[in-house]
């Protein structure tokens, strides 16, 4: 393995691979998508309503995949349950399981169930065969869809979303803390890391939902609600500005303080990380989307152009955020803790922690989402082509 300068002999081999890049990327999408969903629910941003359920399902799809890269990375995956059974209280990583379970069970599943319960009950009455069995199971025995009952669902759902927002911050802020609390590594060690992770998560989550919404509308040959997409793009711009400001603050602080690690990190930024950090993350993944969406806010841009701009910006943002995770995880291991040398990361194509596995883990959430969308259509009834039989509706109301 090519080494430039001096590295401690055990440092030459990188410990955290591309899978550990995928992990914060995926959890970031979860947190961001959920926060976008909560805009409608808590802050009553009506314009983004068409994406509310889609955002929830997107968040769930990615959340289900989130632990997989970690599991695949472990030297002894069969021992991973020990994190739940005998967690080490001083370890940031030990809390992952609990934060994850809390978010999955108490927030995501509960909120989706409450939001969909009405439809699930109707589906369980209008479908036949295995579908009927599936929906009946999903009702969890609660088939009361009276007005009062639905009002309770709505209220509880609101409370769950309210709890969900700090939980989303916790989920991803904690991921940032895992890196930010490693004092041995100056590239990671920063109190800003959890905050940067949260805002970058929001940026990526908002972008992915925007892209999925536009793609879904295209696939379903439905018109894209431009008021909705414009509003999402606005929120994307606001969070992007905060995220970029935080990242620049961190960078300026490092440059101005120029501590013992600076020379080493600066060298890395000009060489090995130049493409992924400067070109992909900062220029293509941040500056161009900010300028483009900012331009749309100021000038009157035709709808078709706006659509194209949003798709391009969304894609660039996703690439930029992935590059950001790459720069944190891989970049943080390319230099020696002696600050006297650098190593390289060789990404295998086919191995347990190789490119193919990483690509599969990034595709898997979309497959899960496609299945979820089939089971629980996020569209309004008329859009979904689902019109429950009147008698069933009436039955429900009477109940």
């Amino acid at each position, binding site marked *: 393995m090519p080494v430039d300068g001096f590295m*401690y*002999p055990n440092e030459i081999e990188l410990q955290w691979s591309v899978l550990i890049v995928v992990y914060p990327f995926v959890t970031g999408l979860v947190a961001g998508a959920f926060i976008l969903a909560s805009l409608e629910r808590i802050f009553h941003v009506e314009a983004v309503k068409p994406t509310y359920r889609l955002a929830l399902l997107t968040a769930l799809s990615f959340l289900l995949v989130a632990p997989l890269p970690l599991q695949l990375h472990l030297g002894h995956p069969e021992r*991973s349950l*020990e*994190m739940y059974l005998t967690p080490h209280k001083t370890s940031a990583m*030990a809390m992952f399981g609990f934060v994850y379970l809390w978010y999955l069970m108490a927030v995501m599943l509960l909120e989706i169930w409450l939001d969909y319960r009405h439809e699930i009950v109707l589906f369980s009455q209008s479908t036949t065969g295995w579908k009927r069995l599936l929906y009946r199971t999903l009702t969890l025995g609660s088939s009361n869809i009276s007005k009062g009952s639905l009002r309770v669902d709505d209220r509880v759902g609101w409370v769950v979303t309210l709890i969900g927002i700090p939980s989303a911050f916790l989920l991803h802020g904690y991921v940032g803390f895992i890196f930010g609390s490693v004092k*041995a590594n100056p590239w990671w060690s920063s109190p800003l890391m959890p905050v940067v992770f949260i805002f970058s998560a929001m940026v990526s989550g908002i972008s992915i939902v925007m892209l999925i919404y536009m793609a879904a509308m295209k696939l379903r040959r439905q018109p894209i609600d431009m008021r909705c997409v414009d509003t999402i793009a606005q929120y994307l711009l606001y969070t992007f500005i905060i995220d970029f400001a935080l990242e620049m603050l961190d960078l300026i602080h490092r440059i101005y303080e120029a501590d013992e690690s600076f020379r080493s990190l600066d060298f890395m930024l000009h060489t090995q990380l130049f493409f992924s950090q400067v070109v992909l993350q900062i220029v293509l993944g941040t500056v161009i989307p900010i300028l483009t969406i900012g331009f749309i806010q100021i000038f009157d841009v035709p709808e078709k152009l706006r659509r194209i701009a949003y798709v391009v910006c969304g894609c660039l943002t996703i690439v930029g955020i992935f590059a950001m995770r790459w720069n944190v995880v891989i970049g943080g291991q390319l230099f020696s803790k002696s*600050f006297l040398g650098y190593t390289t990361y060789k990404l295998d194509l086919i191995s347990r922690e190789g490119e193919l596995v990483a690509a599969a883990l990034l595709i898997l959430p979309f497959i899960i989402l496609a299945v979820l969308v089939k089971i629980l259509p996020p569209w309004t009834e008329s859009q979904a082509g689902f019109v429950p039989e009147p008698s069933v509706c009436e039955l429900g109301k009477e109940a």
Partner: protein
Amino acid sequence: MITRRKLLMLLPAAAIAWEYVVAGTPEISPNYSRPEHWWGMLVDIDKCIGCGNCVRACAAENGVPEGYFRTWVERYHVAGWQQETPQVDSPNGGKNGFPPSKAAGGKNFFVPKMCNHCEDSPCTQVCPVGATFRSVDGVVLVDEKYCLGCRYCIQACPYGCRFLHPVKHTAEKCSLCYHRITKGLTTACCESCPTGARQLADLKNPKDPIHEYLKTHSVQVLKPHLATGAKVYYHDLDGSVR
């Protein structure tokens, strides 16, 4: 006679006992009392000749896989005032000694490195299951039957002392030859050092010569600004050493 009720009551106890049977019993050291010791090491840089004996002895004693190091030796070359940019090399961890230095002028010296058995060790702090821990006698150890292989501890060690065992897939590091020191022996690296550059130190033993040494010599630990409570003390450590 064992009734069904009694059997049911016995089962949990048997399950707990079985866990210990499976885990195996620790080696017996009848005369060793953990609370009475607090282990560290003294390294005299002036005495190290870079022969690599310590690295070889450690590898042989602990079955360290090729290409990985529980201990290693670095050679520093500092030319004049350039403290911040020393030239450092450690071919194969110094296991086979060092070829003659090509660097002219300035000073050359060797720095043996190993786990610092920190009192406030960042590696034990981050372990998600507590598989790595500091024992009562101050030695940082890894329970390989419990380690997940997540490698967080490797990232957290500021000194680069840990690695993932390529076969066991668990974190690995210097154990201060715990199997030896609990039997009253010294570590393999100390034992094999021809110049006495490494000295095992029991900081709780008032008769240990370390106390007199620390009172009368200038010593330093690596990366003191990280406040890890490192217990490997270096005599005459140059400011250029990282």
